[in-house]
């Protein structure tokens, strides 16, 4: 039975990764899961310099999901290179670094710094809804997305994944723009912009007023967008959005994702990533599937 998948020439032992921002740099969850069991670890978004992030409250639970407005707090690329990458290098798993910035130059600086490291792939965050400058501003207009993608591709030494926002009118237009600009893969969906109001205090639940909705509540939207994107482009798509079980993950694979990532559900079940990887094997045995590739895009039309 083969669970390996290849994305932009990089081989993953299984199609299960972590979604950026929900898994730190792997250290926090290594108390719970053996990182060697994962296809890849995607680190929390990192910028060229440390970012403070947003004021608290930064998180709020909603029905079947949660809102967050962390605001991409991160210690900056120096700390990631000095502390987090050596930690992750101890494990037999692929390392994908999520990159964020306020300007194109910020992104390029991080991408260049990572060029000299052992990082396997870069994921470019053009879809965080919680910061005022950068991030989603680059990911909501096809021409902006094309521009930043092509500029990053010129500098990047590793394959580039563009992480797309669901907060757009037509996901296929964005997917095609990233592909046309040379992206090696896509990942989606980032969170959906949402809001929660405390009716007793008459205040916003989040200090940022709006936040990104994640968790099982967004899964059907994510499956639909992954299906649309995967059918609009030839480059591989990494699917995410509410995945907490192997059943969830297999839906994304069948919709056309070449790999999947577990995000908010790590908070609900810190063992979720490994359970998803094991559950995919169980499913493959049950249905006599020899190669996980048979599942990718395998939904009957």
């Amino acid at each position, binding site marked *: 039975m083969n669970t390996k998948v290849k994305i932009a020439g990089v081989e993953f032992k299984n199609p299960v990764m972590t979604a950026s921002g929900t898994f730190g740099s792997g250290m926090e969850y290594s108390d*719970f899961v053996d990182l060697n069991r994962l296809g890849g670890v995607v680190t929390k978004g990192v910028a060229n310099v440390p970012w403070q992030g947003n004021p608290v409250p930064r998180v709020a639970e909603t029905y079947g999901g949660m809102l967050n407005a962390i605001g991409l707090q991160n210690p900056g690329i120096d700390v990631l290179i000095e502390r987090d990458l050596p930690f992750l290098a101890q494990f037999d798993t692929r390392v994908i670094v999520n990159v964020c910035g306020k300007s194109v130059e910020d992104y390029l600086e991080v991408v260049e710094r990572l060029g000299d490291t052992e990082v396997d792939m870069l994921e470019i965050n053009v879809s965080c809804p919680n910061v005022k400058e950068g991030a989603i501003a680059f990911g909501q207009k096809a021409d902006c997305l094309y521009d930043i993608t092509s500029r990053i591709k010129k500098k990047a030494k590793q394959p580039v994944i563009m992480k797309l926002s669901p907060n757009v009118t037509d996901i296929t237009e964005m997917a095609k723009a990233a592909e046309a600009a040379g992206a090696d893969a896509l990942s989606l969906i980032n969170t959906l912009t949402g809001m929660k109001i405390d009716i007793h205090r008459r205040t916003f639940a989040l200090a940022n007023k709006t936040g990104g909705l994640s968790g099982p509540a967004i899964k059907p939207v994510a499956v639909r967008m992954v299906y649309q994107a995967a059918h609009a482009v030839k480059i591989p798509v990494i699917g995410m959005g509410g995945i907490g079980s192997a059943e969830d993950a297999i839906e994304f694979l069948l919709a056309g994702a070449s790999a999947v990532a577990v995000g908010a559900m790590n*908070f609900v079940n810190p063992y979720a990533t490994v359970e998803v990887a094991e559950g995919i094997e169980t499913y493959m045995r049950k249905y006599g599937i020899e190669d996980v590739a048979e599942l990718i895009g395998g939904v009957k039309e």
Partner: protein
Amino acid sequence: MSKQKATAIVAEQRRIAPDIYDMWLLTDLAKEAYAGQFIGVYPKDGARLLPRPISICEADREGGRLRIVYRIAGKGTEEFAGWRSGQSVEILGVLGNGFPIQAAGGKQAVLMGGGIGIPPMLQLAKELKAAGGEPIIIAGYREGQLFLKKDLEQYGKVYVATEDGSAGIKGNVLTVMEQEGLAAEVIMACGPMPMLKAIKAYGAEKQIDAYLSLEERMACGVGACLGCVCKTTHKDGHSHVNNARICTDGPVFEAREVDI
């Protein structure tokens, strides 16, 4: 034992004041639980995803039992209040860094608990007494429902403050310090933010070390999501900005470390 998500059994639960519940859980996590640490308790309702952070009121390490005393603050804790003996429940723990017992060595410790910040003072008083101390405990209540007062009296002299003056001294924990003429050499506290701010100012004025247990909206509970940060006076080693994670760098901080 590292952190884990584990199944615990509800040993017993009762209501001890309006909206305040006292629950004992059978769990091996008790073996490594210390004063000021907390556990995440998961609602069974699958639509409510996140573990609720609840401080440890008592840890019976030999018996493998944890006691939590919590207030109904929403639908999640409302569900917990309906749990019966024998039910199995999911918890995440043990989380956070507790109170530094050694910091009270040879000093007069005054423990200050306000409202639902009173419960962790019980395990703390127990540990301080076991370490040879004689803690003074000040419990601040909203009104005269003096939950846990008798429990606390096993481990130290207890003073009571109530906001409405229906029991003890009318006022707050610091009113008690003043009116009873108490002197602290180290303060350990848990309670609402205005109380903690006042204690920080009091400690600074009197030059007393004060250890404060903070609270914030949390998601992961293990330091990954950066949801529950508090402003710190210095850049901390993890974030490299002035934001410490309450769940893993805290919840207990020395008052000078935090900008509250």
